[in-house]
């Protein structure tokens, strides 16, 4: 399930289609343009999978002796990736 998008002009909330992610789409209510966050991109999808695998590997590596070290490392990677999505 995708996050709903709120039109900045009429405040109508709607769920964009998967292929509309990252696009400039017309609000279904007022027709004005809405900037949809995210990316619908093969490279982006691949990158997301890569980030999760990398975070899991880092978590296992740092959590060998102290599990909370692993949790912090994995959490830091996932947190950075979450912040990175706002750059697009």
């Amino acid at each position, binding site marked *: 399930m995708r996050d709903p998008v709120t039109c900045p*002009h009429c405040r109508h909330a709607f769920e964009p*289609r998967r292929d509309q992610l990252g*696009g400039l*789409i017309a609000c279904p209510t007022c027709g004005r*343009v809405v900037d949809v966050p995210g*990316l*619908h*991109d093969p490279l982006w999808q691949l990158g997301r999978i890569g980030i999760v695998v990398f975070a899991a590997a880092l978590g296992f590596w740092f959590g060998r002796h102290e599990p909370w070290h692993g949790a912090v490392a994995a959490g830091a990677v996932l947190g950075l990736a979450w912040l990175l999505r706002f750059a697009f």
Partner: protein
Amino acid sequence: MSAKPWELSSYRLRRKVLKLFGASFHVYDGDTIVAVCKQKAFKLREDIRLYRDEEQTQELMLIRARQIVDFSACYDIVDSETQQKVGAMRRRGLKSILRDSWEMLDARDTPIGKVEEDSMAMAMLRRLLSNLVPQRFQLQTANGAQATFRQRWNPFVFSLEVSTPAGAAVDPRLVFGAAVLLAAIEGRQGN
């Protein structure tokens, strides 16, 4: 004040030479510049903006890619003045390997037409001879041919002539957006 480029029945897009970063086009009505197009450099996603003059005081149109990778990318076209989406152009990646092909979508992302190179034989010839054979595209909808995009033969400067017949059934802003994309995306491949 001069007419907006899409209000003209024919106009010409010409790539600016000697531009270090990004790309820039001028849109001509005869010898008069009616719009300036700036393609932002160092952007992950293609971001093209059209202004009325070189000083960039009035933005006319914004074209932005949804994807980072150009292959089968979709480009949204927005009228900056009214803040309304005009439509979108989607590149048909696999088809374009042999013959450049784009799908034209309306404001609700419904396909309404396609822009294709004139013929498969000419498209193949162009791929073998690089930019020596100028490209020619046609916009086809259910109502027939709506616009023609003709590249002028010039191995050094990319120049594209656009003509729309009287009473065309497609939003002229969408035709203009398609011309800009052809010049920016396809024109880049030839150089």
